[in-house]
């Protein structure tokens, strides 16, 4: 189960190196002495994504050429993905403009931000992208995206308690969306469900700009006692470095530099082996084992292995402590004995953590790992900084040969930083001049009725139950609100009722029209979504999805978005606690819409006070009064209506006033506390009409609405129902509370307008003088779209399931015997085509000639021609382990 820490007693490799190419290479492993002796040897640094000046810099740091292993390490640590070399200069604003907060226990630069929510408890939350892997292999890409962010949260000392997933796909009716969406959704569900984490919200958005580059972002929320906060420092020379979790395999090698930092072209299917494979069962065991170690105070430091795998974890833990490290690489438990040093260092195999443990605690650590059935192996020890005060060095040997000797900080902190050229896109002025307010609008009741039904059935506004019911929202028993509510609400203390609310929002169309204000609008919406539950917003996370930073137009969009978010957070008085940047989201020269996704976290002192979005059923004769809070202007540019009915994108997005958002939030929290609110629902995409329909359908309660006078006549009722002005909320107030509520509105300076009543007995949504639509008709229009679009995929899966019988690749696993599947086999399987012999697929961007064994490619794999394959196993688990391309790295330094 565990390898003995004493090198003298360590296991000899179970499999002796085979004769053949692998062995030749092994004998020829590039060592430090060899690098000194052969300074002029040509190295494939350009193929690894390093520029000439970056390579020269490595040589300067080391005073010699790097070994192959060192070159691989620098190339992944200095990739855009790990080093944030293009974004760093902008992200500094999050720190510089951060409002003062006494809640922040860990912020930007850590695995995830940690925020104190009571004297005893803190929460940690962060969102990350797993976009590129999810396009290449939707199921595993999405699954390992969840796995990666969960380990970030775990590394802070927290128990993960919920996940959320903002997802963006190409056009809903495009054939490739029918490939990508079902796989992504099954992957998110397959991993999160098997991990026992409730999925409490997210987004499902369709837009043609994401056709070749879907966005799969994943958020995890964790809870910890304040004094259990963990550090990543490899402090204390003499302490033991322990690798815990799954064995290391060839999966995900090159994932960081190849997948995350290059755009897709026609050869992208060749990169499938770079996607990692997840084993949520192993991660569940890892979670329980880590939490037990924390509680027993057995670890000095801990870091998860994410993008850049062992390389990132070793260098970051050492660099943050200023210590050195001595690692015996051959002690790393391998799935494939023929792996070479650089492969072991770059592998992104999933479900692994690096622990720093005092020698006298090692025995207890190994025992805990054994109890939970996970591997734990002492692979090295922490060494002292040099006597002259310089930080220590990271020294790695492999079978007694010195393969790495580097200053760890040079990989982590000394990477290149670029102030890339920026230029406002040339088409932006024309785009902004093409305003949606000039488009023809419906101006008679019949047209308005038809517009309501068409809008609520459009893919972005339609009911997402087809997606969300594939996620477990009940597990752990603390889910107070979940999708389709505006925020997920989780109880974090059963004794006191303390809880948190979380929402994630983004609008790529707004950001395309104006990245600065578009990002503020995303922030405002997430903030408002938290506020409508009655929670007080306290902290922000973000995932910034953009095209290539080498395109000055994209870089300008990025800089504007960051500026907007930093300014917005300052205005709202809540800090950015962490986040993630995803560049190179484009197909050929076409970038996606700039898509900043913003997450806001709020606190509820007692979750029993939470407010839902649904109108409340009442006994006969009783009803609630409806109020629209905020101001409605003629704001249709970038709206869902302009897109759905005119395929139009142009103009200037709605105005955003964060001071007013703040007043609105304070009003809602105060009103919720004293029971003035039966329901509250944010207005955003689709305007008031969408919010009314959702609030009616949530619990089957109708409403009668009167269009206010200022919106009478012509197309003004349409504006009232479909404008997307920000800063608005639809609330229902119990009878008898109206006066007190409107007085509270006046006190907070929030405009209100009585617009009607709920109609529990009526069974319809009626807009006086305009239309009446029965709830059944609304429900049918709203709920049939996604099943109609994606039920075809179910049929296809049935067929695949049938052909798979007898050729299943899902292997049994026990706690004592972690699953061991050749990642090449699993990854290669979906692209094998009928009639072709299953060939071994080498990593297209493999830096050096790493021989890859063809073992384990299932003979029947040519039966399988679709991506349904990985999800055909029990509960969708395709076994084996893998790794995300996300950096465990501190983001946004």
């Amino acid at each position, binding site marked *: 189960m565990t390898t003995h820490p004493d090198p003298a007693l360590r296991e000899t490799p179970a499999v002796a190196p085979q004769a053949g190419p692998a062995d030749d290479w092994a004998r020829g492993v590039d060592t430090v002495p060899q690098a000194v002796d052969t300074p002029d040897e040509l190295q494939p640094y350009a193929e690894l994504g390093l520029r000439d000046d970056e390579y020269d810099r490595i040589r300067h740091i080391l005073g010699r050429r790097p070994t192959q292993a060192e070159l691989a390490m620098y190339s992944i640590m200095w990739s855009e993905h790990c080093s944030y070399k293009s974004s760093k200069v902008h992200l500094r604003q999050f720190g510089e403009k951060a409002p003062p907060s006494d809640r922040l226990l860990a912020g930007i630069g850590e695995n995830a931000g940690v925020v104190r929510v009571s004297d005893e408890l803190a929460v940690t939350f962060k969102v990350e992208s797993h976009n590129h892997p999810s396009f290449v292999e939707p199921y595993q890409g999405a699954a390992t995206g969840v796995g990666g962010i969960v380990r970030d949260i775990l590394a802070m000392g927290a128990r993960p308690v919920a996940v959320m997933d903002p997802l963006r796909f190409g056009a809903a009716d495009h054939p490739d969306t029918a490939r990508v969406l079902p796989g992504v959704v099954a992957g998110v569900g397959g991993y999160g469900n*098997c991990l026992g984490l409730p999925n409490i919200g997210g987004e499902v958005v369709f837009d043609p700009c994401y056709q070749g580059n879907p966005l799969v972002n994943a958020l995890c929320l964790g809870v910890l006692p304040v004094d259990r906060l963990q550090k990543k420092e490899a402090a204390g020379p003499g302490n033991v470095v322990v690798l815990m979790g799954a064995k290391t395999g060839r999966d995900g090698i090159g994932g960081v530099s190849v997948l995350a930092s290059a755009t897709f072209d026609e050869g992208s299917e060749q990169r499938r082996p770079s996607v990692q494979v997840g*084993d949520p069962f192993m991660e569940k*065991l890892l979670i329980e084992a880590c939490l037990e170690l924390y509680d027993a105070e057995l670890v000095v430091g801990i870091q998860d292995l994410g993008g850049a795998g062992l390389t990132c974890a070793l260098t970051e833990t050492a660099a943050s402590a200023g210590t050195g490290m001595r690692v015996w690489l051959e002690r790393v438990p391998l799935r494939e004995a023929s792996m070479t040093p650089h492969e072991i260092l770059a592998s992104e195999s999933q479900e692994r953590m690096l622990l720093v443990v005092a020698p006298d605690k090692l025995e207890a650590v190994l025992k805990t790992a054994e109890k*939970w059935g996970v591997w734990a192996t002492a692979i090295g020890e922490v060494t002292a900084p040099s006597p002259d005060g310089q930080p220590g060095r990271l020294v790695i040997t492999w079978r007694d040969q010195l393969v790495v000797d580097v200053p760890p900080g040079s990989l982590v902190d000394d990477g290149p930083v670029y102030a890339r050229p920026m230029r406002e896109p040339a088409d932006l002025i024309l785009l902004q001049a093409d305003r949606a307010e000039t488009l023809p609008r419906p101006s008679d009741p019949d047209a308005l009725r038809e517009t309501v039904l068409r809008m609520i059935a459009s893919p972005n506004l339609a009911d997402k139950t087809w997606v969300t019911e*594939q996620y*477990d929202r009940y597990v752990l028993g603390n*889910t107070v609100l979940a999708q389709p509510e505006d925020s997920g609400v989780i109880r974090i203390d059963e004794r006191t009722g303390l809880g948190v609310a979380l929402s994630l929002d983004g609008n790529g169309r707004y950001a395309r029209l104006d990245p600065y204000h578009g990002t503020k609008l995303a922030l405002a919406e997430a903030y408002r979504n938290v506020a409508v539950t009655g929670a007080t917003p306290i902290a922000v996370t973000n995932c910034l999805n953009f095209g290539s930073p080498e395109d000055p137009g994209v870089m300008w969009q990025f800089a504007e978005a960051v500026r907007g978010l930093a300014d917005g957070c300052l205005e709202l008085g809540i800090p950015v606690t962490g986040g993630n940047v995803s560049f190179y989201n484009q197909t050929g020269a076409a970038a996606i819409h700039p898509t900043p996704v913003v997450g806001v976290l709020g606190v509820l002192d007692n979750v029993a006070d939470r407010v839902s979005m649904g109108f409340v059923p009442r006994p006969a004769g009783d009803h609630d009064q409806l109020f629209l809070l905020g101001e409605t202007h003629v704001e249709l540019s970038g709206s869902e209506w302009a897109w759905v009915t005119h395929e139009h994108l142009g103009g200037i997005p709605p105005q955003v006033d964060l001071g007013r958002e703040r007043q609105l939030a304070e009003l809602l929290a105060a009103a919720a506390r004293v029971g003035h609110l039966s329901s509250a629902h944010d207005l955003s995409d689709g305007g008031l009409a969408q919010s009314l329909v959702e609030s009616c359908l949530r619990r089957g309660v109708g409403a009668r609405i009167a269009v206010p006078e200022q919106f009478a006549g012509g197309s003004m009722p349409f504006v009232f129902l479909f404008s997307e002005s920000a800063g608005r909320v639809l609330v229902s107030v119990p009878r008898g509370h109206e006066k007190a509520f409107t007085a509270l509105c006046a006190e907070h300076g929030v405009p209100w307008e009585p617009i009607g009543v709920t109609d529990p007995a009526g069974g319809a949504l009626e807009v006086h003088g305009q239309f009446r639509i029965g709830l059944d008709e609304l429900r049918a229009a709203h709920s049939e779209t996604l099943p109609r679009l994606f039920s075809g995929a179910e049929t296809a899966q049935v067929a695949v399931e049938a052909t798979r019988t007898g050729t299943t690749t899902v*292997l049994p696993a026990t706690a004592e015997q972690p699953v061991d599947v050749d990642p090449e086999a699993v990854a290669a399987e979906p692209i094998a085509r009928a009639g072709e012999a299953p060939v071994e697929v080498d990593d297209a961007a493999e830096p050096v000639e790493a021989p890859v064994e063809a073992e384990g490619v299932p003979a029947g794999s040519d039966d399988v021609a679709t991506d349904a394959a990985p999800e055909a196993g*029990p*509960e969708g688990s395709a076994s084996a382990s893998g790794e995300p391309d996300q950096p465990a790295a501190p983001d946004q330094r």
Partner: protein
Amino acid sequence: MTARVGVVTFPGSLDDADAARAVRIAGAEPVRLWHGDPGLHGVDAVVLPGGFSYGDYLRCGAIARFAPVMETIVDAARGGLPVLGICNGFQILCEAHLLPGALTRNQHLHFRNRDQILRIEAVGTAWTNAFQPGQEVLVPVKNGEGCYVADPATLDRLEAEGRVVARYLGGNPNGSQRDIAAITNEAGNVVGIMPHPEHAVEALTGPSLDGLGFFTSVLKHLVGAPA
């Protein structure tokens, strides 16, 4: 004396803490049992919770069935110990042959989580005696492999002997034969149920409080049972 109800944790169990919470809310003392420990520590009844024991690799429940604690539970169940298997627990009970039939992949091939109406059809079991015959209850269902199957003779026998404990109403969420959501053994002490009553015990977090009846039933059963 408070009844002591054991809740087993297998590697990969997920709803174990929730089952323990439900036991506590029902007024009993939850006792956590560990898969590798064959001892039952004097419990009066046992809940096998939901989750993905051993990753559900090979087949749901197929590995858990061989856990040391299961050997003791199988013997004790044959001797009359009340045992409730929820979701993965139901799958384990079938694999352990304490209940007939099997749970297979949902017909539509998706994991499905929704609030589900059930009709309680057998109220003579250790876990359903607090319900009225024909009572309709609302509890969450959430599973990927909840499609109950058995050969026609077994199904007919279950029906004839009144051992179909609950059926899905208003839409079958997984394709189960004859809409079966829960069954019991001949003695009525072992019940397997696919939906999750432990997630319908608090107004704040569940769709109803209907799930509580399963846990109060066993207390009633234990009080009435000969010592």
